[in-house]
């Protein structure tokens, strides 16, 4: 038993951290609110670093690493609020690796960029594969592949869909059975959303009799695995932002004095910061669990990935608010970077089913285990 990082994993994490440092990604996140072109091009960086092919097997020109390795990279991206479109690309690349060698190779090398148009697997209460709707509560059925081989339906709030070359889509047949499809981007309509967090690229994807080809050998299990991979990646990315928020707030609590004392010496401040550290430790433990589940414990993947998403989401929510609170009024103004983390938290918790949905999935899984 060993839950430490390997030397290779430390190297991967360290190189990602070094590479992202000094790229001004946090300043860019601020500038992009008024000028989206301010975001640096991190896709070419991701390609050079091999991150685009991190999860594609070596026989398809990828690096052949595991989900946890990708999660380490996402944590580093999250730490500096960097906008690299890996949340959409990586799950798509895993599905391509299973069913389309040529596509997998293109995605691995970064010659083309993919976005995963996800669908949530059925749960113990809600049956059917469902997707986000543009507004309002509840979910809608995934896009449907007609008997004539064309695809119709809409999936809203798809990470990294704008500008993607190809879409890897979780859809169903007319009888509700899941199917994985490849749709060339020009055959779908992607409507980009300018969002509260300018670093987050999101789009509503509509298929209207779109040409689609099936990914052979990719069924319900693989599509569910891709959904949980997206949950794990988002959890890992959130962890990075938690760490930045905590560091900012701790630094300020040591610098700022009131009534002749540093504010970090007051329990009312100190205990809030320790609670963020506690949530950070919990989130990291759950991310480790998710990494182990992706590699070795397929039966526990729904539980582990959902728990990681839920724990990291809760941590980011509280970290972003505590960071503002510790800074006082200034933390809620653009005199400070704390609002950027808050904006990141606000959008992140509502993506890919949302944090609450992940929490409910945890309940479903532990109830199922208790009934078994």
């Amino acid at each position, binding site marked *: 038993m060993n839950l*430490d990082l390997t030397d290779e994993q430390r190297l991967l994490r360290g190189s990602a951290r070094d590479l992202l440092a000094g790229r001004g990604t946090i300043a860019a996140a601020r500038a992009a609110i008024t000028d989206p072109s301010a975001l640096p091009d991190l896709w070419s960086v991701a390609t050079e670093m091999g991150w685009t092919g991190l999860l594609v097997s070596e026989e398809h020109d990828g690096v052949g690493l595991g989900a946890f390795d990708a999660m380490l990279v996402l944590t580093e991206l999250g730490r500096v609020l960097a906008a690299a479109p890996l949340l959409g690309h990586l799950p798509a690349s895993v599905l391509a690796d299973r069913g389309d060698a040529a596509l997998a190779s293109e995605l691995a090398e970064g010659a083309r960029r993919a976005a995963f148009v996800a669908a949530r697997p059925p749960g113990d209460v809600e049956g059917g594969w469902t997707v986000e709707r543009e507004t309002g509560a509840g979910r809608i059925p995934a896009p449907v592949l007609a008997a004539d081989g064309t695809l119709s339906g809409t999936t809203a709030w798809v990470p990294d869909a704008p500008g993607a070359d190809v879409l890897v889509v979780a859809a169903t047949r007319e009888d509700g059975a899941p199917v994985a499809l490849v749709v060339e981007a020009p055959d779908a309509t992607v409507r980009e959303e300018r969002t509260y967090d300018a670093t987050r690229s999101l789009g509503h994807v509509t298929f209207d009799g779109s040409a689609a080809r099936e990914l052979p050998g990719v069924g319900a299990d693989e599509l569910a695995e891709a959904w949980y991979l997206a949950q794990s990646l988002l959890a890992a990315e959130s962890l990075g932002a938690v760490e930045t928020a905590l560091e900012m707030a701790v630094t300020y609590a040591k610098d700022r004095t009131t009534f002749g004392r540093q504010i970090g010496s007051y329990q009312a401040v100190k205990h809030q910061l320790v609670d963020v550290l506690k949530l950070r430790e919990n989130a990291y433990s759950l991310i480790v669990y998710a990494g182990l589940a992706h590699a070795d414990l397929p039966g526990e993947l729904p539980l582990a990935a959902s728990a990681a998403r839920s724990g990291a989401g809760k941590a980011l929510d509280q970290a972003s608010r505590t960071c503002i609170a510790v800074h006082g009024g200034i933390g809620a103004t653009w005199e400070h970077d704390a609002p950027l983390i808050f904006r990141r938290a606000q959008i992140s918790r509502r993506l890919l089913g949302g944090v609450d949905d992940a929490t409910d999935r945890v309940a479903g899984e532990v109830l199922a285990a208790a009934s078994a």
Partner: protein
Amino acid sequence: MNLDYTPEQVAYREEVRAWVDAHKADAPALHGQWTDTSWIAGRRAWQGALADGGYAGVTWPQEWGGQGRSPVDQVIVDQELVRGGVPNILDYIGLGMLGPCIMAHGTSEQKQRYIGPMLHGDEIWCQMFSEPAAGSDLAALRTSAKAQDDGTFVLDGQKVWTTNAQFAEFGLCLARTNPDVVKHRGLTMFVVPMDTAGVSVVGLEQISGDAEFNEVFLDGVVLGPEHVVGEVDGGWACALTVLMNERLSIGRDVTGFRMDVDRFPPPIAADAHARRDPEVRHRLGDASVDLLAVRFNGLRALTALQSGQVPGPEAGLAKLTMVEAATRAADLVVDVVGPSALDPSSEWYHVVSYLPGFRSAGGTAEIVRNTVGDRVLGLPPEPRSDKGVPFSQQRTDGPVEAR
């Protein structure tokens, strides 16, 4: 990164499991009343059987009758005892914290005299540290030990929260030998035979009605110099050894009081309405996420132990999460089951009654947050009015008696 056990660990698990299966007919009930002398007698005998089998003091040095094994092997033993539905050792305080302190600081006579009987459960030990006015601020304790001209010491004062004192043969007692120096410099550690004249033990009844711990009164207790562990006025170093070993044992569930994630769902799963209720599900999911985190916090700590690192104060955070999440989960279970879950015949009666006090066990939630804030996040400590001030000149709750 892996959860795999080595072939040696797998073989060890099989060996432990076979032993448990062969001996479990002799085991006492898993749970009982801490004031029930016949159950305690059964627990003592069971600890002796575990020691004979090599399953008590698993990580202790072989020189002192231990097995010299790794923390993972200890976890394997703990898991197999839980699996077999049998109790672990009775004297987890002695074996976990006090024995290692005597090994580190005691004389060779003390080690020869005390360690063996402790291991076998022939003599049970209790930890006499906390007092009514000294819990989180342990070094503020007031029990005095006055040196006499004949070389003996006379102890007067009161201890509290003393687990197992009602049947212990010995206590390891921290007392003040010098009030005229800074508070943690004037303390000395003593071995107190619990049958010495002047020692009296009064059970402290908890919410459940059981009395797991006690008040211990010391009234003119005379101890010879051979009862001093470590140096006179050097007791704080011994206390730190005990507290460090307390951290090492975090995550070990020796009481069989499971607060694991899979304990709480069954009564909810059994209720067809509750298991589909969105609010119930959300509360269960929320608590389960945290309890899963506690499980993997523990495995991360075990990884650190294996590679020879000593867990830092951040280990206390996992206990905070455990208590908070178990409290939410237990409340949910009782909400679903209804008032009958609070009947003394229900397991939830014990869980619900135990958790409010458990929040302060081994350090209140507040002192854990202070320590972690100062030592892990590097935040400035709160200003203290006792820093550098001799104990006798300190402000306290009331008169410092029997000086």
